[in-house]
């Protein structure tokens, strides 16, 4: 039920953009942009791994994990700030609602943060690596939890538009990532 509610504004937006035209064209653009963002994150990960392998002749798994953890945090911060800006533009300036592309981008960023946290956890579990301050674990948990809380509010919202949830979510996420970066360095 909630999912259906959440999809309604998207359909309305698409229909509004195309008049009475069928929805295939906007959806295909959205899929391509989804794919683009996914490829961007995946390509970024591959680049970091290649960089680690080239910079250290005998690239141990730990170094790859360390570099991924380091760079994904910065990528997450940049994406969170960009998404917060886009959310402010769509929600406050254009008074619009959440679009399918925006929601999927939020899911991809949540996935990136989950991967980031799993990398950090595996560094701790398998290599006994510790962050600069123990509270880094708390901020790491916060980066994973912050988006789902607000995605839940948006996807179950009866009052539309509901872009405010993402303004909150991405702003908090950016702040938490920043604290996580500051407490992670030894």
């Amino acid at each position, binding site marked *: 039920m909630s999912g259906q509610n959440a999809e309604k504004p998207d359909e309305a937006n698409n229909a509004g953009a195309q008049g009475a035209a069928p929805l295939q064209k906007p959806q295909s653009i959205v899929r391509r942009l989804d794919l683009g963002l996914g490829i961007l994150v995946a390509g970024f990960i591959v680049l970091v791994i290649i960089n680690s392998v080239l910079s250290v002749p005998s690239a141990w798994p730990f170094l790859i994990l360390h570099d991924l953890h380091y760079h994904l945090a910065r990528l997450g911060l940049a994406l969170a700030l960009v998404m917060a800006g886009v959310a402010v533009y769509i929600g406050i300036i254009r008074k619009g609602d959440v679009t399918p592309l925006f929601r999927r981008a939020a899911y991809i960023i949540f996935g990136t943060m989950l991967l980031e946290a799993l990398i950090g956890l595996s560094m701790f579990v398998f290599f006994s690596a510790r962050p600069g301050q123990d509270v880094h674990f*708390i901020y790491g*948990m916060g980066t994973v939890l912050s988006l789902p*809380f607000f995605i839940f*509010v948006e996807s179950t919202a009866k*009052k539309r538009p*509901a872009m*405010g*949830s993402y303004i909150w979510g991405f702003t908090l996420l950016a702040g938490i990532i920043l604290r996580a970066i500051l407490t992670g360095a030894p």
Partner: protein
Amino acid sequence: MQTITFAFVVSVIGAIVTGIFAAIVLKRWLEKRRPHNLAWGIGLALYFIGLLSQVILSFVWSPIFFALWYWTGALMVAPWLGQGTIYLLWRKGNIARNFQMALLLVAVMTLPWALFLTPFDSSAWHPGADMTAIYRDIMPQGSGTIRSFSPVMNIWGTIALVGGAIYSARLFRKKQIMRNRMFGNWLIAAGGLLPALGGTLIRLGDPSFKYFAEMAGAILIFIGFLMATHVADDAQETRSASSSLAAGD
């Protein structure tokens, strides 16, 4: 019996009052499923846990109960009680739900921080110790510690609870309707201010008032809640008042 102090007695009374109050509000939430009742119920349950921890800390040192005492009293009670008022007064869009999620996120992050990652120095503790007087010696201070959340959370919660109650009381007075609710809201405002006043007095060097303020605050909010909800089942009046509040006029 060194542990039976004034602070101990008022903590026990406060714990009993908040425990009963929390049960009543949570029962009301189970019956009506209104989100403000859930927020208040959680806030009162945390108030109860904080006072219970205070009673236990009068007898025995426990880092877990100390962490719970600090987490509930300094970080969580005021914002959760304020969240109930935000639900009632801020009905535009999803603002109240977003506030709740932010609060939930802070709660989920700070609880393990207080329980597992904050070092406590128990050398300042002794049976019957005044916790409000010694907590600064027990916990580390400075930016980047869990104590840095306390001012933000308390200001947020107190403004929401006390400000919301004063706003509602003034509204009922202006509209000349539901005198019970008007008086109830004044009492809730006074009850919400008392613990904050106690916190101010601690900083001024008189910690003993804090315990009395906690107990009296809980009792005043309880009486205010009972008065304010006395006419809650009067559907017509409630609906008109609610729509007025939602309209913000």
